């Protein structure tokens, strides 16, 4: 559960922003909190609120969620390879709810197998942070000074960097894959601007990882 604390703190600040956004889009505090409790994802929720705000169709909602959140399938697949034997089907059905970018990042960084208790602890505290932040943001968002809320925008990215840098420093292949992925991502941002950010992340990561797997296959005993 202690591994979930930085995630919860980061979520508190990010979901605060989501709460403000949801209220600005005309949703109530309760609705905003319900979205956070059932979805537990930042980009997908933000895009979902946009669809609701303009009264989009349900088909549009499905496509938007699929596009932005499909990266979770890759993460889920990756995590499925390092689950402890205690992870029975019911446990998998419950824990799947909590596969987010950050929980995935922390779980991937674990050397040992993942147990249900480990994931539940992290998911629980992260979800509490996420929903609390949403409710607070929706209820009182405008009260926080900009200097603080702006600075809080970086907190989760700081955590991502802390996950990426140590292995990239130790392993040349990881460094190459990470740099390649960042480079493609920058290209999408500035050259291929009509690709949604969700798709851009998927394509960048898949291309970089395929190249990594082709040129630097991992040894049989690793992972």
């Amino acid at each position, binding site marked *: 559960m202690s591994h979930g604390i930085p995630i919860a703190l980061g979520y508190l600040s990010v979901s605060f922003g989501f709460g403000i956004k949801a209220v600005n889009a005309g949703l109530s505090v309760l609705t905003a909190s319900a979205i956070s409790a059932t979805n*537990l994802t930042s980009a997908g929720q933000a895009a*979902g609120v946009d669809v609701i705000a303009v009264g989009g169709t349900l088909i549009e909602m499905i496509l938007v969620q699929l596009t932005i959140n499909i990266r979770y399938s890759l993460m889920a697949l990756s995590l499925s390879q390092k689950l402890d034997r205690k992870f029975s089907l019911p446990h998998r059905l419950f824990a799947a709810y909590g596969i987010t970018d950050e929980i995935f990042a922390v779980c991937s960084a674990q050397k040992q197998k993942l147990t249900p208790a480990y994931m539940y602890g992290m998911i629980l505290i992260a979800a509490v942070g996420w929903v609390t932040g949403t409710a607070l943001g929706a209820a009182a968002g405008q009260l926080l000074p900009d200097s603080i809320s702006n*600075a809080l925008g970086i907190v989760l990215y700081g955590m991502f960097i*802390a996950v990426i840098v140590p292995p990239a420093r130790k392993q040349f292949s990881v460094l190459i894959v990470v740099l390649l992925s960042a480079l493609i991502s920058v290209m999408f941002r500035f050259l291929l601007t009509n690709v949604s950010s969700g798709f851009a992340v998927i394509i960048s990561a898949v291309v970089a990882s395929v190249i990594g797997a082709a040129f630097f296959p991992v040894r049989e005993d690793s992972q």
Partner: protein
Amino acid sequence: MKVVLYIIVMAVVTYLIRMIPFAFFRRKIKSRFFRSFLYYIPYAVLSAMTIPAIFYSTGNIVTAIVGTVTAFVLSYFNLPLIVVALSATAAAFISGIILL
């Protein structure tokens, strides 16, 4: 009422995306290529999500760069996640105050 329907659709789609591969992929993957791919994917995903988005995360590119450099330096020395994340935030906050 319509809003409830939207929320249900959002939640179900998002859950299925996570649940199907997580729950029903039980075999150990044999292919060395595919296992290598899955080994690299986490780092690649996080990298693509962070760069270049981190530079726009604080609403000011200078404070974002200060925060980013702080995060890189501290994580290079293997400091814990929470220390890196909060130091990056503090660096962005302080540089924001100095700039103003």
